[in-house]
């Protein structure tokens, strides 16, 4: 049983990552990190005792779609998705959509949504 975390390039992303690390340790399992930033994940300071897989972004896909696709790929092994949340302005939401809303509604595993 594996924990998966979606880490966008934002403070919420880092909050989600640290929550996911705690959760992984608690469940004594392994962690799949989906890095949604455009540059590689900064792995400095990540605990070395946990089994962690980092997946970088490839191809031109909507962020939510790529997370859902990764969930499908790990279907049966991942049993928790960790995401970060923040308050959005209506305009920002209208322009760029809401990643966390889509993941909460469409992921078919339990979602742990952490606030900062």
């Amino acid at each position, binding site marked *: 049983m594996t924990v998966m975390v979606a880490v966008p*390039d934002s403070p919420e992303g880092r909050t989600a990552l640290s929550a996911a690390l705690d959760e992984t340790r608690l469940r004594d399992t392994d962690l799949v990190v989906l890095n949604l930033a*455009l*540059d590689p994940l900064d792995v400095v300071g990540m605990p070395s005792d946990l089994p962690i897989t980092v997946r970088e972004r490839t191809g031109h896909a909507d962020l939510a779609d790529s997370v859902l696709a990764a969930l499908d790929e790990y279907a049966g092994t991942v049993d928790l998705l960790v995401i970060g949340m923040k308050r959005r302005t209506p305009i920002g939401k209208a322009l*760029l959509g809401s990643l966390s809303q889509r993941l909460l509604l469409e992921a078919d595993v339990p979602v742990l949504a952490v606030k900062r």
Partner: protein
Amino acid sequence: MSHDTHDAVPSGPTTETLGPHTRRLKLLTVVATFGGLLFGYDTGVINGALPYMTDDLGLTPATEGVVTSSLLLGAALGAFLGGRVSDRRGRRTMILRLAVLFAVGTLICTFAPGVGVMVFGRVVLGLAVGGASVTVIAYLSEVSPVERRGRLVTQNELMVVSGQLLAFVGNAVIGGVWGEAGGVWRWMLVIATLPAVALWAGMLAMPESPRWLASRGRFGEALAVLQQVRDAKRAEAELAEVRALAEEDEAAQTAGWRDLAVPWIRRIVVVGLAIAVMQQITGVNSIMYYGTQILTESGFDRDGALIANIANGVISVLATFVGIWLLGRVRRRPMLIVGQIGTFCALLLVGVFSLVLPEGVSRASVVLALTVTFLAFQQGAISPVTWLMLSEIFPLKLRGLGMGVCGLMLWIVNFLVGLLFPILVAAIGISATFFLFAGLGVCAMLVAKAIVPETKGRTLEQLERDFKHGGAPARDMAKVTR
């Protein structure tokens, strides 16, 4: 790739030796750059054709603006769609289709009975111009050896200004010899079918881009093409590189709109957009499109203006040469800002002299000297820096999106300048219009000083760090470089 500094010339697998492949590559470059030439001819020909067209078709300042700028609207669309189509169908197929589109658009314009058909024909031409602007550069950079790639963008720019010069010369000759006959502008336009046919026929004999073939998994064909344009030893070695570059191209398409939510990414895109706007907001294309009319209004007769306008074309070509040479030697930021100071002064003086001198040959000569000065700074400094910087500031995964929106912005501002210039001249007069451009030039200078980073000799990683830490990369850099 991402670790190269911008100036380093990466040494290929082996250095290039001379042979039959060299000739093949040269021929290929010449054929493909006919696309750039057509781009220049079709945007420049309107300059001399417009005065005749105005009489024949009964154009008002507003419809003059529409006829001129409708091409640019088509070009924005063509540049936007062109990338997708050439990714799907291949560069060679795309260029062949563009050649047909160039010819069809030209013929529609040539036989246009009125403004409506003319505008339609200009939009069709614009689609070809915009499509060529992205496809020809992609094709050339994909078939050329790595050490030549850096120069290609600016070389294409050279072909564009050469096409404009060719159009100006053609206009002057046709206007001078057959100026009294009716519909002489139709002859000016129809000449553009010749390079279109040459492009089409030439491309039939040219191979598809090896990188595109590799991106489709057609490695055998890619190797066959490489053997035509590289020496035998290098072809094998390069297939691996081509494969890697095809993957890199795919990576370049990673970013989407949602990534603009990240502040540092937004900052880079804003700087790119600012660079694009600054290149057009000087009003360079008001001179490239309306130069003959500016000179006529200043006091030359029609034939004299057509001939004098050639000077604008000549200086553009010469300055582009100088610009390419300068790029390798001076830093980008000072080059840009010096260019802006130069264009600002020239614009200001055109405004002043149009105000104080009486209309006549002396005023027209002064205006000509100033437009030539303006173009020297524009094409010798601002434009080359623009093309290069836009290709340098975006990190790999952002490149597709970044270049796309900045290219679109360039065409839109170009469209607005083309549309509004005749309307402004009719409404507020020529000197006030130039004062307006000079004012916009001051704004552009301040923006350049505040936000444009130095990219020469810096890796993408260094730039990325600057954009991540604070909004004023330019200032940080000044400290480093001093």
